[in-house]
């Protein structure tokens, strides 16, 4: 393990904490830093208590976990498909979730059912793609990718159909969901537990992942049981993404760019790359969500708008500089 990367990782962790702090302090109403202290010691005003404990902290933590889940899932997908364009949604998972969630909204169901439908839709799409790609026996990354992309297009058509035929007053809710929005994120406990559990599970497997990232044949030659590991990666990535989509709708971009960014900074060792991706993805989403809350406050933007606006220039700059 490349121990000399550890200071970088600690730096990233400090940055994550700073971003979380900012996310709690900033909003339509900016709080002084000692408000956090008095709220945590139980001496805050009722308004500050509600703002911090009921509204912002759960939201910021949910944002962090979601970003971490997406970035980790993206890193895994890139290993699995050995394709730099792979992201958590490339296999049609967000499309399945979106169709189910929009149907739940059309039926007038509440937040809980919309989230549950999204989770169900994501799992359904996963099994569909998996069954179609692996069902006939012979499998390859290309075949999986192609199946996923085509299924995703199918979901896309259904989404357009649902949007075109729904009532006007339901459109804002649907569009916000599709762009990714954290204002109705449920409790952040489950996403955090899953993220931590998966990271702990994956880090001992890092060497295997490193080998697999170089190619299925090489990995097989080195004694990796490729099919089993691929199955596991696929399953884990799908679970991570499904939970992320359940929390916040389909937030694009984080899962694609963050793993690439981290590869530029930390190199190719998955044992560093995966935790670094989780930290950076979480930080990016918290930062984006904080901006989404304050840019035109008190009006709100969906977070998906900001993630790309923040990430694209940073990524292009790094790509440009790494080329020289």
């Amino acid at each position, binding site marked *: 393990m490349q121990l000399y990367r550890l200071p970088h990782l600690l730096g990233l962790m400090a940055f994550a904490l700073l971003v979380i702090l900012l996310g709690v302090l900033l909003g339509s109403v900016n709080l002084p830093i000692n408000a956090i202290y008095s709220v945590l010691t139980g001496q805050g005003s009722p308004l500050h208590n509600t703002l911090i404990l009921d509204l912002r902290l759960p939201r910021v933590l949910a944002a962090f976990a979601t970003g971490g889940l997406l970035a980790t899932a993206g890193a895994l997908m890139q290993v699995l498909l050995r394709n730099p364009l792979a992201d958590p949604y490339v296999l049609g998972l967000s499309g399945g979730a979106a169709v189910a969630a929009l149907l739940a909204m059309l039926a007038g169901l509440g937040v809980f059912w919309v989230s549950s439908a999204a989770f169900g839709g994501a799992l359904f799409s996963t099994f569909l793609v998996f069954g179609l790609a692996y069902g006939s026996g012979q499998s390859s990354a290309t075949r999986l990718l192609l199946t996923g992309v085509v299924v995703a297009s199918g979901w896309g058509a259904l989404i357009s159909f649902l949007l075109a035929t729904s009532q006007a007053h339901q459109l804002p809710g649907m569009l916000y969901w599709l762009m990714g929005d954290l204002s109705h994120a449920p409790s952040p406990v489950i996403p955090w537990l899953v993220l931590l559990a998966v990271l702990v599970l994956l880090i001992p497997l890092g060497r295997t992942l490193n080998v697999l990232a170089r190619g299925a044949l090489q990995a097989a030659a080195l004694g990796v049981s490729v099919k089993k590991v691929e199955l596991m990666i696929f399953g884990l990535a799908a679970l991570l993404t499904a939970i992320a989509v359940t929390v916040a709708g389909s937030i694009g971009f984080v899962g694609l760019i963050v793993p690439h960014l981290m590869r530029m900074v930390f190199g190719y060792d998955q044992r560093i790359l995966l935790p670094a991706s989780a930290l950076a993805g979480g930080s990016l989403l918290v930062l984006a969500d904080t901006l989404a809350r304050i840019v035109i406050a008190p*009006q709100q933007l969906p977070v998906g708008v900001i993630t790309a606006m923040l990430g694209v220039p940073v990524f292009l700059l790094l790509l440009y500089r790494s080329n020289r």
Partner: protein
Amino acid sequence: MHLTRFWVLLQFWVLSFAFTAAVLATPLKAAALTITDDTGQVLQLTQPAQRIISLSPHLTENLFAIGAGNLIVGAVEYSDYPEAAKNLPLVGGYDQLDVEGIVALQPDLIIAWHSGNPLPQIERLASLSIPVYFTEPRSFAAVSHELRQLGRLTGKEAQAEAAALAFEQGAEQLKAEYAQQRPVRVFYQVWEQPLMTLNGEHLISEGLSLCGGVNIFSDLNQLVPVISREVVLTKNPEVIMGGGMGEDTPAWLENWKKYPSLQAVQENKLYFIPPSLVQRPTPRFLQGTKIMCEKLQKARAN
């Protein structure tokens, strides 16, 4: 050969000249009715409209209100009030019109909703020389104006005048009774996910001020902005009111009870307003306003 071509051309010229002359002559014949719509466009009709297409549920409602419902030959989806409106032939949704269906109904007037209907489709219809009257009612005064204009368009001036007067007098009464009472700060919730309210230019906001209510978000720029929950907490309104998904599901209001620091929650001033009474600029809006006024009065008493 050359000669025949010449004759064909000549016939064509003569015909097209005659046609042009005929077209030019038509408006001169008799413009019995000259009327300016809400976009400032001047419309000329030779006679009051007999076959009307109504491109918004609120227009259908207003046409029925002035006794011109029987002149509607086509309406858009969700034209559900009064009961008779539900039987009208549909020509698409207000945001997606069935242009061919409209043409096939041979209307002599299309009444359109300027900010709601898709302009390219309306222009297509106008290019087929079907007269289009645009409306954009955003205030109490605009509602009574619209009723009167619809009366002129359909030749039902007397009934329209009665409906407009009833609306104006009803509003005046509410104003006289409530506008000078103690001002009450109100958060009006339009939608739950995302959380949406309305600014001061919205008809509902005008209704609130008629009742002596003060919309806490009246100074925002967007007509129906998405806002954060926390800004509602800090503005701490005395009253929270709003509709819901259906006619009797005040579930959105229940959600606020999670925040006991709110004055509206402490004093139990969360009020449900039936959305069908306030979502359209029609005479029914007066009933909605009346309910808002009564709720605010209740809030003052507590």
